[in-house]
């Protein structure tokens, strides 16, 4: 399969996002099912900062490589479509979490999802998934046309 430079850089971004946040979220949700209590505030903050910094450095490097390429109307159009899908997904997820909080309040159920620790990681998961959708949509449209 012949990939353009932009497609390769999108695949790399997608891979980095999946690898770093996938690794972090896998660990977080494994702990969540066993123990809904946070392992320690400082530890979580340090780990999140470490993951975010690592991800930003790699994404920044990939973005600087991409910027050296000329961006035209097709690239902007595909980017716009991908942001629309990503935003739609994220909005739906935020509404889902809001309903969960309301249900939790009304029925006094302490769901794993609505503990502060669980909520934090579900929000992070939804942000990561929306990024994956953004990269995935761009790849799809670069491959199949718009």
């Amino acid at each position, binding site marked *: 399969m012949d990939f353009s430079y932009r497609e390769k850089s999108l695949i790399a971004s997608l891979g980095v996002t999946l690898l770093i946040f996938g690794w972090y979220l896998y660990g977080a949700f494994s702990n969540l099912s066993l123990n809904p209590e946070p392992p320690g505030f400082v530890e979580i903050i340090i780990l999140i900062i470490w993951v975010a910094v690592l991800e930003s450095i790699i994404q920044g490097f990939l973005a600087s490589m991409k910027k050296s390429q*000329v961006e035209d109307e*097709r*690239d902007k159009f595909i980017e716009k479509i991908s942001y629309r899908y990503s935003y739609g997904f994220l909005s739906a997820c935020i509404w889902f979490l809001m309903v969960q909080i309301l249900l939790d309040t009304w029925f006094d159920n302490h769901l794993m999802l609505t503990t502060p620790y669980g909520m934090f990681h579900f929000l992070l998961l939804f942000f990561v998934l929306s990024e994956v959708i953004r990269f995935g949509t761009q790849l799809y449209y670069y491959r199949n046309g718009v």
Partner: protein
Amino acid sequence: MSQQALADKVGVTRQTIFAIEKDKYSPSLEVAFKISNEFGVPLETVFNYK
């Protein structure tokens, strides 16, 4: 004329010219006019609406 040469003259990437040729992207009117101007032919000679 090569795809890269046309892309440089029109101000888009080579991939976009390739996508237009393969019918995978419908260019804006501005780009469509620029392409037809490069070939020195009317717009409807280069593009047609399906």
